[in-house]
């Protein structure tokens, strides 16, 4: 079983990549950060991606049954994974799970709504940290104060190295935590911005005459 590490925020790009893998005889078995594949006859399947916010067990059964009845095999995705991967082995390489461009664009809107709900509490925490002028944030912007050992930078040689190595894990915790939080917020906001761009473009294309 082949495994590949990849990260996507664009459904269309991800679909194209999975279909190029299928054309090479590698059909998606499980998606995530690590994609695993099973061998198939090259080009015998087409892969499509839907996005659904978490569903109840009943809804998930009904959802997969509908696709199954329509000739789509569910490859990967759990009730709460968002992304749902389907394959059609009917031989039609243009088979689609959306018969209308507008409904295809809604994938992005649903994804944006879910990621916005996830990022919101992080955003509030970051905002509160900054606006309260907390010591944590002040420390962040003055690297000279990262190390608390009195006179650490006046020490020399082995003594400096010892103090430095001893304190570094604590610094990483104190400084790394907030940096990680802020970085995560930025990454999520960038993801949402990109998906909104994709959504608007897809809607514009679907209504263009």
């Amino acid at each position, binding site marked *: 079983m082949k495994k590949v590490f990849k990260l996507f925020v664009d459904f269309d790009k991800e679909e194209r990549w999975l279909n190029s893998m299928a054309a090479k005889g590698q059909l998606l078995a499980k998606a995530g950060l690590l994609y695993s594949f099973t061998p198939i006859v090259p080009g015998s399947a087409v892969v499509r991606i839907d996005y659904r916010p978490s569903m109840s067990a009943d809804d998930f059964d*009904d959802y997969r049954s*509908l696709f199954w009845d329509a000739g789509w095999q569910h490859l990967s995705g759990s009730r709460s994974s968002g992304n749902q991967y389907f394959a059609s082995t009917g031989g039609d390489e243009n088979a689609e799970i959306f*018969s209308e461009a507008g409904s295809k664009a809604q994938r992005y809107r649903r994804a944006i709504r879910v990621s916005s709900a996830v990022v919101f509490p992080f955003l509030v925490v970051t905002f509160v940290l900054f606006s309260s002028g907390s010591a944590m944030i002040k420390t962040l912007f003055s690297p000279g104060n990262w190390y608390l050992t009195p006179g650490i930078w006046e020490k020399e040689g082995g003594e400096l190295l010892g103090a430095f190595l001893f304190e570094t894990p604590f610094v990483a915790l104190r400084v790394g935590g907030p940096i990680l939080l802020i970085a995560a917020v930025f990454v999520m906001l960038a993801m949402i911005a990109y998906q909104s761009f994709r959504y608007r473009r897809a809607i514009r294309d679907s209504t263009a005459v």
Partner: protein
Amino acid sequence: MALIQPAHGYAIMARVETMSDDAVRLAPGTLYGALENLVKQKLITRVADADPRRKVYQITELGYQTLAQDAERMAHLVRVFERTQGGIEK
């Protein structure tokens, strides 16, 4: 209109295809979203059925009224169009 008689997902796809003389082929992703929206707008509703894996839907009173109004509006449009066409031919 395909839900005046109750049906589950795939039956709806088949019915829409027959009713439209093969002109409309719904794909499952599109249909699932459409059913969700119609339920939210209370135009269709879920009805009980033996198969727990496939939900069955039927049109509601509100859905039927909306459909009838829509049909009347379109019939009116056709009448106006035909009248205007007659005027051009004269």
